[in-house]
């Protein structure tokens, strides 16, 4: 008995150490260390007559940039939530034909390179577009594109949580005389708040560090801090200024994240969860029908129309339609690529596979730390986990270059790309898992323990299945992020074949209707690939119904 005791406590302690050690080591080595190195090099290295931080903060144009960065991110987040929460409701609560397909499809925009989406929006938001008004190069174009990109974040993060919330709670409110709206505001919204906050934080970070969308759709004169950092670092080769701006960006985001984390911890309590399949119902009656149709229309317009533009372009010919762009891709004799575009599909899939595995392992361990240890340590950890999303891609890329040469020179390793992708994907894994993990009732874990489950088994048998949906959503995002990542990737010196976004970007770098068509076709392939992966992931089940 003594020996068993000893063994189990050692194993437990080792498990707990791994739980906190894995994410800490990963983030420490692949994020904090490079980040500190690049900032230190920029800010204190070299011969500087003036203090770059003072210079940057003293610049009058910076205040405008910082203010614009902040308010467009807040506005984008609000708009995305307003449109996305009803969408999440429909996909979480109703069972209808094509639901799975739509849930997979909303993720597609997420992976598309901004340069491709930008060309579609410039048509749709132009004077000849369906709106009939010219929104190009206005803030509206930026906001609309941000909704396009981030809608999936809200639908999937909030939806995965929502579908496990017991609908009887809302029904109870209805029976007590609450209207649909009041029941939503007073019962449902507080219940789903943790996931809404989680989704909002991701959308905020994404839009706060928005780069391509702002450059392409915002037009000349509108810039975020991210754009400024890029310009300083790569066009003006002014690393001190870029580092000072990065620091400013980090401090701002870090503060917001800490505040968020505090709020999130308070907002989340345990609750009785139900299996997702039990909470969905068929469409009954007129109100249901309008809710579903209305939301599907929003998705079709906001997400579907730009995708449709890309699809049409990929099959468009001077006279009618053609699949020439696709067959051309298969031939692969396109200048500026030097490899078959289809090889890029394979490269991207492999990177995405590795990146998602890393992100899920590190992310779930990190999420467990955040969810189960309350208090300040967990809050700080939580905020640090999110930072990679809010850090400029140039900074991360250059940080890798400066820091990762010893003991193993990873700077030009083929592993660096999936590692960078995982870094960006981890916040998603954490964000979509923590609210659910926190909601798993302690009672269920205790029940498992009294039935003979050790802590690891308890986690696997109770937490994982309940958190599994969220983890799957996270895996999907990790995969999608890796497929579409073009920020940090483009600042890493990469060996080997290009990824899909890089291949698309290179095709678009050449004039010619054929290269353009092929870039569009490759984008459509990226779309289909993403949608397909999402569908497959959605088919994994954790419910374990009928199993022993």
């Amino acid at each position, binding site marked *: 008995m003594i020996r068993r005791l000893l063994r*189990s406590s050692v194993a437990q302690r080792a498990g707990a150490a791994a739980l906190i050690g894995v994410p800490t080591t990963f983030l420490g080595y692949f994020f904090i260390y490079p980040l500190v190195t690049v900032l230190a090099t920029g800010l204190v290295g070299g011969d500087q007559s003036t203090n770059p931080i003072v210079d940057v903060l003293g610049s009058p144009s910076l205040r405008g940039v910082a203010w614009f960065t902040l308010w467009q991110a807040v506005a984008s987040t609000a708009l995305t939530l307003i449109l996305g929460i009803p969408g999440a409701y429909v996909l979480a609560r109703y069972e209808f034909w094509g639901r799975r397909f739509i849930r997979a499809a909303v993720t597609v925009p997420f992976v598309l390179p901004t340069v491709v989406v930008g060309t579609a929006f410039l048509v749709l938001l132009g004077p000849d577009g369906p709106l009939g008004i010219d929104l190009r190069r206005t803030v509206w174009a930026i906001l609309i594109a941000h909704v396009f990109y981030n809608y999936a974040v809200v639908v999937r993060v909030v939806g995965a949580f929502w579908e496990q919330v017991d609908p009887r709670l809302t029904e109870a409110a209805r029976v007590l005389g609450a209207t649909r709206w009041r029941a939503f505001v007073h019962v449902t919204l507080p219940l789903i708040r943790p996931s809404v906050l989680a989704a909002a934080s991701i959308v905020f970070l994404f839009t706060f560090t928005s780069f391509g969308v702002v450059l392409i759709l915002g037009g000349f004169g509108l810039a975020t801090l991210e754009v400024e950092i890029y310009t300083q670092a790569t066009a003006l080769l002014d690393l001190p200024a870029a580092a000072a701006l990065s620091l400013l960006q980090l401090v701002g985001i870090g503060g917001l994240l800490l505040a968020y984390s505090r709020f999130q911890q308070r907002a989340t309590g345990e609750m009785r969860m139900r299996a997702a399949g039990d909470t969905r119902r068929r469409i009954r009656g007129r109100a249901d029908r309008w809710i579903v149709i209305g939301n599907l229309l929003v998705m079709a317009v906001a997400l579907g129309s730009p995708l449709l533009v890309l699809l049409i372009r990929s099959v468009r010919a001077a006279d009618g339609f053609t699949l020439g762009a696709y067959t051309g891709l298969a031939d692969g004799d396109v200048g500026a690529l030097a490899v078959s575009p289809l090889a890029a599909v394979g490269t991207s899939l492999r990177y995405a596979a590795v990146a998602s595995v890393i992100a899920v392992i590190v992310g779930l361990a990190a999420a467990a730390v955040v969810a189960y240890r309350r208090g300040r340590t967990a809050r700080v950890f939580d905020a640090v986990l999110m930072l990679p999303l809010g850090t400029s891609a140039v900074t991360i890329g250059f940080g890798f270059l400066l820091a990762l040469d010893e003991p193993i020179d990873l700077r030009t390793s083929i592993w660096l790309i999936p590692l960078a992708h995982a870094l960006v994907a981890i916040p998603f894994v954490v964000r979509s898992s923590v609210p659910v993990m926190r909601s798993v009732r302690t009672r269920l874990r205790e029940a498992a323990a009294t039935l003979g489950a050790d*802590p690891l088994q308890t986690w696997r*048998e109770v937490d994982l299945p309940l958190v599994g949906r969220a983890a799957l959503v996270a895996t999907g995002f990790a995969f999608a992020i890796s497929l579409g990542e073009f920020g940090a990737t483009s600042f890493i010196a990469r060996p080997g074949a290009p990824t899909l976004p890089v291949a698309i970007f290179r095709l678009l770098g050449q004039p010619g209707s054929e290269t353009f068509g092929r870039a569009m076709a490759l984008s459509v392939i990226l779309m289909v690939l993403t949608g397909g992966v999402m569908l497959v992931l959605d088919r994994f089940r954790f419910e*374990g119904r*009928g199993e022993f």
Partner: protein
Amino acid sequence: MLAVTDVRVSFGDLVALRDVALSVPLGSTTVVMGPSGCGKSTLLRVIAGLQQPERGHVDWMGEPIDGVPPHERGFGLMFQDYALFPHRSVGANVGFGLRMAKWDEAAIRARVSEMLELVGLAGYTTRSIGNLSGGEQQRVALARALAPSPRVLMLDEPIGALDRDLRSALMREMRSIFRGLELSVIYVTHDQHEAFGLADHIAVMRSGEILRTGSPEHLWNHPGSAFVARFIGHENVIDRKAAHQLAAAGVIDAPNPMTITPEAVAVSPAPTGPGHVVESRFVTGRYRTTVRVAGVDLLAAASSAMPTGTRVGVTISPEGVTHLERDT
């Protein structure tokens, strides 16, 4: 034999268990009863290993098990709200402990069927937890707790939330299951009927302390204090103050706390008697008459109704009197 010695647990200022000692003989059912908030659930959690006591210890067969994590104790616990896994089927819930014990699939399947049959839910294996009624959930929880053959089975108010008929039925079933399997059971309830219906031993708790333990019969005959007597269902509990009033009125001899069975209270109409009838109800075949004498209400078993307000004389026959040591 399971023994709890001097266990103390507090949550902030609130002392949930105050140096509690309890021994649980094997192969029998020990009921821990007490009002809600008295610490009985905490006691179960300490025994299960879910709650670390600040001091004191838990011994199993003479060996301390305080450092043993819950999953290695082999004690089953059925929670008050059942804590069924919402994401698993009935069968998977019941088979959970067996999987943890690494049974093979066929054996698990057989055991699950056996357990479900035992609790009267044969054929429920693939049903979803979300669609069960309260009674069905209770049975699944019981089957789940029983399946791994725990060395000690603990049940925390297992049928408290159910309606009366269902409760009696389930109580009968549980009794036969406990007896049939010769289980060591610790059963927590606030209900005297459940306690007396199931217990081989009873422990009464209040405010984190165990006031009295013993067999049902012993406890009934020697409740020791007015609180325990009232809690286990004595109907005429006379504390010291009431005893003084009754003694002054000449109804009893000495002003000591006691309990009196309703049968020992004889009531007869007497126009100048010291008492009067407050209420007379017909319950389960006979009349129960409440009389007020010297400001104390006494319940008397009677064969006929008496109109409210009737002046009565009251006599107590000594064989129905149990003396109490303490008021509270």
